[in-house]
């Protein structure tokens, strides 16, 4: 299921070591031993991290080459970044509408609106899909 796939990508990147590994793989493919070098952990531990990244679809390992280098699936990584960017743009759109609202308010406005009725009013405040 796609939502789970996205979650796997996010949670795979929730770990700092795995993020670091991904960052290094953006430069070039690397073997497990090469990846393990800078860390004070066993090759087995690095393999475990790689398994998580692999399950998330973020990296792949060549079956043919003897060194079996790890390769970053940049497309999956970009896709996730695009998702965040799309969310950001949506928030920006919302805040541009807020910019317009703020421009219409007097500078000395009371920050607290007149006390509303606690219960739903008979005529709720509503807006059409306005620009």
């Amino acid at each position, binding site marked *: 299921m796609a939502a789970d796939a*996205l979650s796997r990508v996010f949670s795979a990147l929730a770990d700092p070591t795995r993020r670091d590994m991904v960052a290094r793989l953006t430069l070039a493919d690397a073997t497990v031993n090469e990846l393990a070098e800078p860390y004070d952990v066993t090759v087995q531990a690095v393999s475990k991290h790689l398994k998580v990244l692999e399950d998330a679809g973020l990296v792949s390992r060549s079956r043919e080459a003897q060194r079996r280098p790890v390769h970053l*699936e940049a497309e*999956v990584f970009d896709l996730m970044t695009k998702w965040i960017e799309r969310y950001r743009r949506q*928030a920006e759109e919302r805040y541009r509408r807020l910019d317009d609202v703020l421009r219409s*308010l007097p500078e000395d406005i009371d*920050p607290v*609106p007149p006390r509303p009725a606690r219960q739903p009013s008979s005529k709720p*405040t509503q807006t059409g899909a306005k*620009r």
Partner: protein
Amino acid sequence: MTTTSTHETQIIADPDVPLVRIVREFDATREQVFRAHTDPELIVQWLGPRDLTMTVDHYDCRTGGSYRYVHNRDGEEYGFNGTFHEVRPSELIVQTFSFEGFPDSVALERLMIEDIGDGRTRLTATSLVDSFEGRDAFLASGMETGVREGYERLDELLAR
């Protein structure tokens, strides 16, 4: 995971806790920004997605108060509600946020309003949800246009 843009909305998806932080600056006073977040007449003008009709059922923005609003599109209704945990005019709003379709799941939202001089105000909105899955669904939600296509593309990529 951070996306930034000068002057524009910044989104930060925290890697360690299921949290999303949005930072934005406005050419307005703290009082104006606070009012636009608490006055239902104003909220309906900007909060809801453009293609939905937003109806505020009630919006009692004070410590201990509550709110409820409904988004409506083509006869389909999506209700949202929450309570105001702490409200300090022109400064802070701490509230819960729940989609009525999943009432057991609740997000904790904090809105900080800061004066940054020259009549400008910085708004920092954080939303803490109860799981990474929830956060990621939150990030993926509301992106009506393109999100399905995006999922399909991810499916294709992952199926390879």
